């Protein structure tokens, strides 16, 4: 059996010239941003003795009178209308708790899911008892953010056939800041797989379904074996997404597709090697720049 032995490569510093062309206003905790009292305090800042101080390390952003500091890496902060992928952690009275990589678990109320049997169905006591039959601990769902509570917890809903329980596929976790906000986060990629880009950094890769499921409310999952070719496409996509996220590239349908195409000359397992990652991401970057003009 052949074994691939590799030595650790030295970490390469990013070329300083890359950052030098722009002057960022970078701050770290405790730094004074301004002593002028005419400004409003935004996220990542706090007031002390009439001074505005930073509380996180990041880039200062000013919008008129409002000053915020955007940290480079944070947990997901939900907004109404976001698409999220999450995992059920608990079944409670009339609600499910969902882990969405947020700072508190999100809730999915029984009244905000589509139960089998159409939109206009009354929710009875039996439904409450059968909740674990619909979604149980460990199940993955896709959903939309319906509301944000005052403590930052999210309320989700799945009242559309797009959303619901996820069946067979691969989950990839990336930083939430890498997901580009688009009109749609559900894509059927031409390479033969589908993708859900959750705003919370969970990405779901699954084989493109042949026909849309009929009135089951999305609670029945197809457990038939997936052909090898589909699984290969999904694995390749997964490695491409990891490659893009390791180079801090924004993730959306075009960037993923370009990266997929750039990766075709290589074997799937080789896409985890650093030098090949750099290669394909560079090619993707060039194509994206070209396309933008």
């Amino acid at each position, binding site marked *: 059996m052949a074994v691939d032995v590799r030595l650790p490569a030295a970490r390469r510093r990013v070329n300083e010239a*890359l950052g030098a062309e722009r002057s960022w206003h*970078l701050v770290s905790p405790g730094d004074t941003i301004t002593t002028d009292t005419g400004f409003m305090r935004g996220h990542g800042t*706090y007031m002390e003795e009439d001074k505005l101080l930073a*509380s*996180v*390390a990041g880039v200062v*952003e000013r919008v008129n009178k409002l000053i915020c500091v955007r940290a480079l890496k944070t*947990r997901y902060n939900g907004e109404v209308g976001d698409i999220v992928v999450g995992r059920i952690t608990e079944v409670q009275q009339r609600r499910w708790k969902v882990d969405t990589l947020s700072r508190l678990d999100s809730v999915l109320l029984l009244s905000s899911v589509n139960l089998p049997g159409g939109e206009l169905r009354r929710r009875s006591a039996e439904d409450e008892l059968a909740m674990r039959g619909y979604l149980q601990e460990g199940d993955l769902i896709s959903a939309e953010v319906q509301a944000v509570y005052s403590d930052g917890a999210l309320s989700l809903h799945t009242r559309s056939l797009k959303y619901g329980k996820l069946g067979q596929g691969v989950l990839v976790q990336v930083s939430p800041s890498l997901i580009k*906000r688009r009109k749609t986060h559900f894509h059927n990629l031409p390479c033969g797989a589908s993708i859900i880009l959750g705003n919370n950094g969970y990405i779901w890769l699954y084989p493109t379904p042949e026909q849309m499921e009929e009135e089951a409310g999305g609670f029945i999952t197809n457990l038939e074996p997936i052909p090898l070719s589909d699984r290969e496409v999904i694995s390749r996509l997964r490695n491409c997404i990891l490659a893009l996220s390791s*180079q801090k590239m924004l993730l959306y349908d075009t960037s993923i597709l370009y990266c997929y195409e750039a990766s075709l000359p290589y074997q799937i397992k080789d896409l985890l090697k650093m030098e090949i990652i750099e290669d394909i991401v560079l090619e993707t970057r060039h194509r994206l720049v070209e396309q933008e003009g």
Partner: protein
Amino acid sequence: MAGLELLSDQGYRVDGRKAGELRKIQARMGVFAQADGSAYMEQGNTKALAVVYGPHEIRGSRAKTLHDRAVVNCQYSMATFSTGERKRRPHGDRTSTEMTLHLKQTFEAAILTQLYPRSQIDIYVQILQADGGNYCTCVNAATLAVIDAGIPMRDYVCASSSGFIEDTPLADLSYVEESAGGPYLSLALLPKSEQIALLEMNSRLHEDHLERVMDAASKACKDVYAVLEQVVRDHLQEVSALVGDRGAA
């Protein structure tokens, strides 16, 4: 220990440092992809690894939930291979439990916990090699990890130790100096506001000397701050260069 001279006549210490000099500090942020924040820190031969998870939903018993702020959960451990003699229990013994408590108090003072009601922030630190000033290295590493996780803090927390040998306050004690049995003071400071997050002293020291020893420790903390700040700034520069101009995308 009759033969060991901790401070020579020329004013040099056992490892060749001057009285107020720190050991070499090396640090790196973002060493793990899985955690929300992580950092690795070396102060001389003392090496520590810190990992931060959170803020996230309270795990374990619900009773711990605080409705006005986040719970800070710390764990201090020493790798079995970290000391001269192999350790049996990496964590859970008396000294580790005490250290855990100290870390918790330190970071509750520094993190703006009231921004995250009903959440929990986990800070795990492990000593990989122990050569004196374990608490201080842990605090410094954990500070970097918390900053890496993007959790709001009032200020950096910088910690350093100091001792008092032959009428001279020494900064940043190594294991040899620590185990000589003299007074040992560790100080965690918020350097910008000069607030003390934690102060601890072992053994006896005359009141008249306390101020000088404290001064040596706080001077050392500010020196540590200068180094940590540079590490954070380099890290920021590097990542924001990669990310490029994204705005609030």
